């Protein structure tokens, strides 16, 4: 989908502000939200691509103005509601309760050794998105490719600023879960992933580009087509 979360090249939103020091978590609520990604993933709320798409669906003004971990709250709610795992009326009721009484306790509960073991196991191992596939790679390092400029409606990683641009394949990574299906609840359908290098001039235009620069962007096989050296030279795409 096209949306404000797809931020590359957005102008007019002000400078990058870098505080001298800041803690890993800036508020107590951030500490409660951060583990929700891993633990709700374990509980079957979402895969990582769906998790991202839930964030993309946030109202764009809220997306731009809210603290980062609040985005995670939205996607947990989105899938909790969609899958019937969260009663939203009850969530609203409890929100009002804790808003009135911020120090009111959480429910009494038992420790869960299996959940703790999951944390100790998943943090150092993770869960790769790499998948075996016997699909042949359609492209190889050195190929000159153009990114499909079409505009899918659901989740995709085909950012707007690379659509229609011509670049060179510089790395080939093997086959990974395809976000354009997995992020839309349509299965993993692994595809080859490549890194494509675009010159700044190709991405932004010679008049508007910083000199001597490039962007490397990872694409899945269906995102690109061969452009051929002729096409690339004609458009001054590759240095």
């Amino acid at each position, binding site marked *: 989908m096209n949306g404000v979360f797809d*931020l590359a090249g957005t102008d007019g939103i002000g400078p*990058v*502000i870098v505080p001298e020091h800041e803690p*890993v978590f800036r508020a107590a609520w951030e500490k409660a939200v951060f583990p929700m990604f891993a*633990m709700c993933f374990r509980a079957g709320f979402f895969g*990582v691509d769906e998790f991202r798409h839930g964030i993309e669906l946030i*109202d764009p003004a809220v997306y731009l103005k809210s603290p980062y971990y609040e985005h995670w709250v939205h996607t947990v709610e989105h899938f909790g509601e969609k899958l019937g795992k969260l009663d939203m009326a009850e969530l609203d009721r409890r929100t009002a309760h804790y808003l009135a009484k911020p120090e009111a306790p959480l429910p009494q509960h038992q420790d869960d050794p299996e959940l703790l073991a999951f944390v100790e196991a998943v*943090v150092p191992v993770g869960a790769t998105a790499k998948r075996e596939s016997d699909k042949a790679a359609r492209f190889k390092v050195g190929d000159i490719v153009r990114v499909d400029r079409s505009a899918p409606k659901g989740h995709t990683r085909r950012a707007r600023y690379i659509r229609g641009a011509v670049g060179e394949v510089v790395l080939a*990574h093997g086959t990974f879960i395809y976000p354009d299906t997995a992020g839309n609840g349509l299965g993993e359908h692994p595809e080859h992933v490549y890194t494509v290098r675009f010159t700044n001039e190709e991405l932004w235009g010679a008049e508007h580009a910083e000199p001597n*620069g490039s962007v490397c962007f990872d694409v899945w096989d269906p995102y690109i087509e061969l452009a051929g050296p002729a096409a690339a030279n004609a458009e001054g795409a590759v240095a």
Partner: protein
Amino acid sequence: MSAKIRTQEEIAARVKALESMLIEQGVMTTQAIDRMVEIYEHEVGPQLGAKVVAKAWSDPEFKARLVEDASEACKELGISGLQGEDMFVVENTDDVHNIIVCTLCSCYPWPVLGLPPNWYKDPQYRAAITREPRKVLSDSFDFTVPESVEVRVWDSSSEMRYWVLPQRPAGTDGWSEERLAELVTRDSMIGVGPVAQVAS
């Protein structure tokens, strides 16, 4: 479009409500939450990436393995995990300076850098770093890359997790890995800052 921008108090109440329901469902426990927070507050952070960089500076064979397959090489040092299952190290040279970003969300190599700083996740960095990287480095990080050096921005759009292997500074011949590691800043592994200066 009617959604509201919440105050910190409203967010905190919403989160506690959500947490309470997830606890009742057995999805979370406060024990597991506390442990996960402890890991990323105190165990996993940029000191791990710095250790890898220092070893790569000291051991050419390790560096070759790191550049070939960063995730496998890091495992030699016991470094691995969530959001670093498939890492790829991009090496700064006299000709190329690398920077990482995730313009579509906020992907970041947790096992070597910890959780990302807020500016990395903010819309402003994600918007500007692919379009005007030199200007961002100069305006917000007080860091200049010479015009003769290509600025190459790695937009982490897939599950590959990129991070930067900075150049070893001059004047560090014979230094131990521990001493070298102290030079390696988080920002130098993101590509928005230098390694620490060596007193001459």
